[in-house]
C-alpha cells in the first residue's frame, strides 16, 4: 500500500479539503435541483403554453436578391412583391374546410384542392404552399376572415421577375428551388429548404454575390396564428449585391426580334477592347418568368424533350464547324508561320475544285474563281486556294498554330456551362480517333483549312478569335459583368493571332472587301455609314442544310464591336445567308446608339 506523507498537510487540513469537496458537490447538485424545480414547477405553465401552442415563431426576413442591371442601369432581373399563402401544420379536417371556403376566391381547381389535401395528409408537420403569387385582393380576403383560417399564413415575398423574359433567358438564367443534395453540401451552408437559387446563366454564376443573407424575427402568436407581439432578437436581412452587366438591353431585345423565326442558333456581340459582352442571344429560347420557384411540370418536360433543346445556350455551349469564318484564322496561322504572305499565289487556279487522288474537293462556286492570292481568296472565300494554302503550311504547323490559339479551350466567359472547342492538337489525336492507318493527313489538312473536319467552335469562341484580329492584341476574356473598378484592365486570354501590322492590315482589308466589295460574300448587307469587316461561313453538317455563319467587326479601322452570328441550317442551297443581316443590324444599332450617346 502506498502511504503518502505530506509533511505540510495536517489531519485538519485533510478533513477541510474533504468537507470543501462535499460542499461543492452539494452546492452544484443542489443548485441544479433548485434551477430545474423553478423551471419545471415554477414556470411550467408558461413553458407548457409555449410548447403546446408553439407560440414562438421564427419568421424569416428574406434578403432581397441583388438586381441585374444592364450597361445603362436598366433592370434585367427584378424583385416584385407578391403574396404567398401557405398552410401551417394543423388538423387535416380544418385544412380541407378552409380550402372548401377558399376554393373560389383563390381560383383553385378541384384537382388542385384534392392534391393539396393529399399533400397535407402526407406531410403533417411541414408547411405547404397553397398559392404562390396571390393578389392583394386574395390576401385581403383571408386576412379579413382571419379567425376562420388559424393555420393559414400569408407572407409577403419578393418574386424574381425578368423584364426581358425569353429575350435574355440564357444570359440572365433563372431561379430554382434548392435540392436535397445541395442542402447536404457544405458549399450551400446557410441555405434553407425551399430557398431559391440561381439555376442558370448569371443568376447561377454570381449566386454568392446576389443571394444576400436572410434575417429573422421572433414573434409570439396567439392560438389563431396572429402575431400578438414581437420578441427581441431580430436579425436584419442583408440584401444581396446588385450586378452591373455589360449587356445592352436594346441590343438584346433586337437580337431576340431579329433572329430568323423558327431557326436555332446564337448571336453574340462584344467590345473587342475590353471583352465586355454587349449582346448574347441563343435561339430557341424560353420564358424565364415561368421558371422561377417551381416551373409547371408540363412546361419543364416540354423544354427537356424539345428536340431543338431550348435550354442549351448555343453561344457558349454550341459546337459548330466554323466553315469559312475559320479561313482568316488559317490565313493568320500561315502568315505567322511564314508559309504565305498576302500576295502568295499557288499553282492551281480555281476551276471549281481540286482533285486529290481519286477524290475531288469542291469549291463552293463550281464555275471557279480563277487565279487567286490570299486576299482575293478571302474576299471570295475560295476553297481551292485554301486547300493549297493548307498543303503549303503542312498539317503539323496548322495543328501547332491551333494549339497556340487554344482552339480546344474555352473563352473564359463568366457564364456557367461553357463548352470548350474541339480541335486536334497533334497527329497523335488523329491516330487515336481513326487508327494509325485510318486517316489521310492531306485530307485532314484540306478539311481543316476551310473550317471543316475535326473542328467545332462555339459562337463566342469565334467572336473572341476575331477580337484579336480586330485589335491586334491578345483577345480579352469575354465578360458579362462590370464588377471591377473602371481602371482595371480586362483579363486577356491566351488567344493572340500575333500578326505584324502589314499582315493584319492585309487580312482586315480582305475582310472589309468581303463585306463591301461587289464580289464579296456579304456585299448585300454592307452598312451605309460604317465600314464593317467580316467573313461569312457555310458549315456543312450531317443534320441537314448547311449552317450560316457570319463573324465580323466594325468600324474596321477602329473596332468597337465584334459580332458572331450562327443560324443553324440558315444557308439553304441557292439562298442567302440568314446570319449576315442579323449581325449587320446588331452592329448598326450599336454603333448608332453609341453615336447618339456621344452627341448627348
Amino acid at each position, binding site marked *: 500500500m*502506498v502511504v503518502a506523507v505530506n*509533511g505540510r498537510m495536517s489531519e485538519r*487540513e485533510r478533513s477541510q479539503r474533504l468537507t470543501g469537496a462535499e460542499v461543492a*458537490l452539494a452546492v452544484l447538485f443542489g443548485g*441544479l435541483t433548485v434551477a430545474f424545480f423553478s*423551471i419545471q*414547477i415554477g414556470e*411550467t405553465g408558461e413553458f407548457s403554453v409555449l410548447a403546446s401552442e408553439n407560440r*414562438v415563431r*421564427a419568421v424569416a426576413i428574406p434578403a432581397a436578391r441583388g438586381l441585374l442591371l444592364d450597361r445603362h442601369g436598366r433592370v434585367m432581373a427584378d424583385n416584385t412583391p407578391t403574396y404567398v399563402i401557405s398552410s401551417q401544420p394543423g388538423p387535416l379536417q380544418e385544412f380541407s374546410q378552409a380550402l372548401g371556403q377558399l376554393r373560389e376566391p383563390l381560383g383553385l381547381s378541384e384537382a388542385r384542392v384534392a392534391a393539396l389535401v393529399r399533400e397535407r395528409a402526407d406531410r403533417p408537420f411541414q408547411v405547404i404552399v397553397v398559392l404562390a403569387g396571390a393578389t392583394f385582393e386574395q390576401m385581403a380576403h383571408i386576412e379579413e376572415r382571419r379567425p376562420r383560417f388559424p393555420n393559414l399564413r400569408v407572407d409577403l415575398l419578393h418574386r424574381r421577375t425578368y423584364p426581358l423574359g425569353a429575350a435574355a433567358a440564357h444570359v440572365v438564367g433563372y431561379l430554382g428551388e434548392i435540392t436535397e443534395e445541395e442542402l447536404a453540401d457544405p458549399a450551400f451552408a446557410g441555405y434553407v429548404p425551399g430557398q431559391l437559387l440561381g439555376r442558370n446563366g448569371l443568376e447561377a454564376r454570381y449566386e454568392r454575390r446576389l443571394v444576400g443573407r436572410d434575417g429573422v424575427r421572433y414573434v409570439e402568436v396567439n392560438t389563431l396564428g396572429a402575431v400578438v407581439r414581437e420578441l427581441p432578437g431580430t436579425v436584419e436581412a442583408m440584401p444581396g449585391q446588385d450586378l452591373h452587366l455589360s449587356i445592352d438591353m436594346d441590343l438584346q431585345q433586337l437580337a431576340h426580334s431579329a433572329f430568323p423565326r423558327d431557326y436555332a442558333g446564337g448571336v453574340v456581340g462584344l467590345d473587342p477592347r475590353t471583352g465586355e459582352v454587349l449582346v448574347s442571344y441563343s435561339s430557341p429560347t424560353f420564358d424565364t418568368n415561368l421558371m422561377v420557384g417551381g416551373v409547371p411540370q408540363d412546361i419543364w418536360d416540354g423544354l427537356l424533350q424539345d428536340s431543338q433543346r431550348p435550354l442549351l445556350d448555343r453561344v457558349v455551349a454550341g459546337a459548330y464547324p466554323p466553315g469559312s469564318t475559320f479561313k482568316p484564322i488559317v490565313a493568320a496561322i500561315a502568315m505567322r508561320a511564314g508559309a504565305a504572305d498576302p500576295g502568295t499565289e499557288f499553282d492551281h487556279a480555281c476551276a471549281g475544285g481540286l482533285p486529290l487522288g481519286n477524290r475531288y474537293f469542291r469549291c463552293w462556286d463550281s464555275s471557279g474563281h480563277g487565279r487567286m492570292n490570299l486576299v482575293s481568296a478571302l474576299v471570295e472565300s475560295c476553297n481551292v486556294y485554301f486547300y493549297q494554302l493548307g498543303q503549303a503550311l503542312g498539317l503539323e504547323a496548322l495543328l501547332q498554330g491551333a494549339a497556340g490559339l487554344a482552339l480546344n479551350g474555352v473563352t473564359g466567359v463568366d457564364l456557367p456551362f461553357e463548352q470548350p472547342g474541339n480541335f486536334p492538337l497533334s497527329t497523335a489525336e488523329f491516330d487515336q480517333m481513326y487508327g494509325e492507318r485510318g486517316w489521310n493527313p492531306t485530307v485532314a489538312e484540306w478539311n481543316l483549312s476551310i473550317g471543316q473536319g475535326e473542328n467545332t467552335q462555339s459562337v463566342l469562341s469565334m467572336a473572341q478569335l476575331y477580337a484579336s484580329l480586330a485589335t491586334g492584341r491578345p483577345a480579352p476574356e469575354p465578360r458579362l459583368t462590370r464588377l471591377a473598378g473602371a481602371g482595371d484592365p480586362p483579363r486577356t486570354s491566351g488567344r493572340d493571332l500575333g500578326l505584324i501590322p502589314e499582315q493584319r492590315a492585309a487580312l482586315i482589308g480582305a475582310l472589309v472587301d468581303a463585306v463591301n466589295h461587289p464580289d464579296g460574300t456579304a456585299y448585300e448587307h454592307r452598312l451605309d455609314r460604317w465600314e464593317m469587316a467580316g467573313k461569312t461561313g457555310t458549315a456543312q453538317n450531317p443534320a441537314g442544310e448547311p449552317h450560316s455563319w457570319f463573324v465580323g467587326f466594325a468600324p474596321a479601322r477602329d473596332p468597337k464591336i465584334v459580332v458572331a452570328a450562327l443560324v443553324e441550317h440558315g444557308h439553304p442551297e441557292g439562298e442567302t445567308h440568314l446570319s449576315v443581316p442579323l449581325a449587320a443590324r446588331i452592329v448598326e444599332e450599336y454603333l448608332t446608339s453609341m453615336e447618339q450617346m456621344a452627341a448627348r
Partner: protein
Amino acid sequence: MTARGTSELVGEGQTLGVALLLSLLGIAVIYSAGQVDIPTTPDRYWVRQAIWLALSLGAFLAIRRVSLGLLQWVAPWLYAISVLLLVFVLVFGVGPGGSWIELGVGRFQPSELAKMATVLMLAKTVTRREARRAGDRRLSRYAKPTLTAGIPTVLVLLQPDLGSAMIFPLLLLAALYWTGAHPLHILWISSPMVGLVAGATWWIWGIWFGVVLLSFRLGPVRPFLSEGVAVLIANAATGAATIPLWNSLRPYQQDRLLVFLDPQRDPRGAGWNLIQSQVAIGSGGAFGQGYAAGPQKRLAFLPERHTDFVFSVVGEELGFVGVAVFLFLFWLLLRRLLRISAVAGDSFGGVAVFCLLAALTAHAVVNIGMTIGLFPVTGLPLPFVSYGGSFLLFTFAALAVAQRTAAEA
C-alpha cells in the same frame, strides 16, 4: 482478502449498480430521443450504445484487475501515446471538428483517452517525493504537473474542442487542491488561464494583472522573484494570445460562447437550441409528458437530442421527478468516488480518483446546466447518458480505477 477489502467489495456492488442503472436509463433515453414524428433515417443509436455499454463493462472488469502500481508504471507510456494520438488526430482527424480517429469498425476520440492518461500522469507527478518535500515553498515544484495538463489542453484546443480542452486545467486544479497546495499557489498557477479569458478586453485584463501582482505582496505566502516574474510573463502571454485564439475558433464555437453571454444574439441558430431546450424542459412539469411522448422532441424541435441536449429529453418526458432521480443518482455515485479518494488520501490512487471525480462532475454539471442556460453549450457529453462510445469507455475506466483504489486502500 482482508475484512476491509470485503467491505469495499460491497461498496463496489453499489457503485457498479448505480452506474449500470444510469447507463440503462441512458439507453432508454437515447431510444426515446430517436422517436420523432418527422421522417428521418432509421435511428439505431440506442443499439450501438448498448454494444458500447457491453464493451465498457468488459473494460471495467479488466482494468479493475490492474494494480495501482502497474497503473503508475504505465502512466507515462499511456500519456505519451495519447499525446501522439492527439497530434495524429490534428492531422488525420475525421468527423465533426475532426476530433475522431477512424478505426474501420468505428470511431474513437483520443481526447477521452487523453483525459484518463493525464489523470494518471498528474497523480504520478504530484505524489512524487520531490513534489511534496516538507516545508517546500517553491512554486516550481508544480511545473511538471502544469506541463502535464498544459500539453493536452493546447492540443485539444487546436482541434478545436473547447469543452474537452477545459477539462485538463480542471484536472490540474483538482490534483493541486487534493494534495493540499496553498490556495495562492493554485491562484498563481491558474492565473494565466483566467488571463486568457480576461484578455478579450484590455482593461479587464489589466485589473486581473494587478490582482495577481498584489497577491504577491499581500498574501501570507510569497513567490520567489523568478517565479513571480514567470507567472507574470505567462499572464502577459496568454492575455496577448486571446484575440488570435478567438479568431482561430470556428464561427459556430464563437457563436456558442457569445450566445451564452447573450442568448438573444443568435436566436435562430445557437440561441434557438437553448430556447427549445428550455421550452421542452419547462413543459415537462412535475411528472413529464410521458416516456417517448415529449411533443417538442417528437416534432424535432429539440436539437442534438442524442448528445448535447439528451437531458432535455429527460426533462420533457420524465419531468422534475425524473430529473431529480438522475441528479440524485449522479450525486450518489460522485459522493461514493469522493469517499474512496478520502480513504486513499493523497496517494497516487487517491489523487487519481479525485481528478476523475472532478472530471465526471464537470461533465455532468456543465451538460445538465447548459440545457437550461446555466452554462455555455460546450459539447461536453453527459456521463452514462449521452450517445458516444469513447466517453462511456472513459467513464467506466474511471470507475474501475476508483474500485481498484478502494480495494487497495
